[in-house]
C-alpha cells in the first residue's frame, strides 16, 4: 500500500525533499516506517530516538498501523511561538 510522507524542517534538509509517495508493506506500523527511513537516511537520527509522529494530521503512537493513503509525518522538535 502507499502512504504520503511529509518532511519538515531539519528532516526535509536531510531527505532533500518535502514529500514523497512511499510503498509500505501491509500491516506496517509507524515504527516500521521510521526504521526503514532511518536505514536509508541515518541523518534523520540526529534528533535522537523516534520523534513524535502524525498520521493524518494527528499525533499518534509508534504502534499505529498504517493504512492505504495515510498522510504520515515524523516531526522534528517543534519551536513555535
Amino acid at each position, binding site marked *: 500500500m502507499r502512504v504520503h510522507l511529509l518532511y*519538515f524542517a*531539519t528532516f526535509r534538509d536531510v531527505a532533500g525533499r518535502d514529500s514523497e509517495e512511499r510503498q509500505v508493506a501491509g500491516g506496517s506500523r509507524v515504527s516500521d516506517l521510521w526504521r526503514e527511513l532511518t536505514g536509508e537516511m541515518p541523518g534523520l537520527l540526529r534528533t535522537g530516538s523516534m520523534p513524535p509522529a*502524525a498520521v493524518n494530521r494527528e499525533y499518534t503512537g509508534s504502534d499505529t498501523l498504517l493504512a492505504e493513503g495515510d498522510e504520515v*509525518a515524523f516531526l522534528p522538535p*517543534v*519551536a*513555535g*511561538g
Partner: protein
Amino acid sequence: MYLTDAPIDPASLTGSVRSADGGVCTFLGVVRDHHLGRATSRIQYEAYGPMAEAEIGKIVESLVLEWPETRVVVRHRVGVLEVGDVAVAIVASAPHRAEAFSACRAAIDRIKKTVPIWKREFHPDGTSDWVDPTADPHTAQSAVPDPDD
C-alpha cells in the same frame, strides 16, 4: 485560521473582547536579535499547516474548557521574519484579570510544546540553524549554510 503569512497587527485581535470583560492579557512573541549567544539576522517559521491549525484549535478549546469565561485569540506567523517582527500574538480576555493572565500564559506554553511549527535562525555570517528547544544548546546548532547568502 490561526496561521498567517502577513504581518500580525495585535490591535486588530482585540475585537473579541466583550463588554463583560474587565481584563485583557496579550502576549507577543517577537523575533530577537540573538539566541544562545549568537546574533540572529532573521528567522524563517515553517508550519505543517493543516496540523498546526488543528493543534492550535485544540489548545484554544482546552483553554476555554479550563477557563470558561475566557476568550482566546491566537495568530502565528509563518515565513521569513525580521528582528522585531511579531511571530505569535495571543489575546486572552476575561471578566477578571487572573483568568486572562492564566489562559494567556497557558496558551503560549502549550503552543510552544505541541504545535508543529519550526524555526530556522539565520545568522549574519550566512549560516543557519533549525532551533531545537529540547536539545543541548551546542549540539542543537547545525550551521547549515544559508542558500540565499
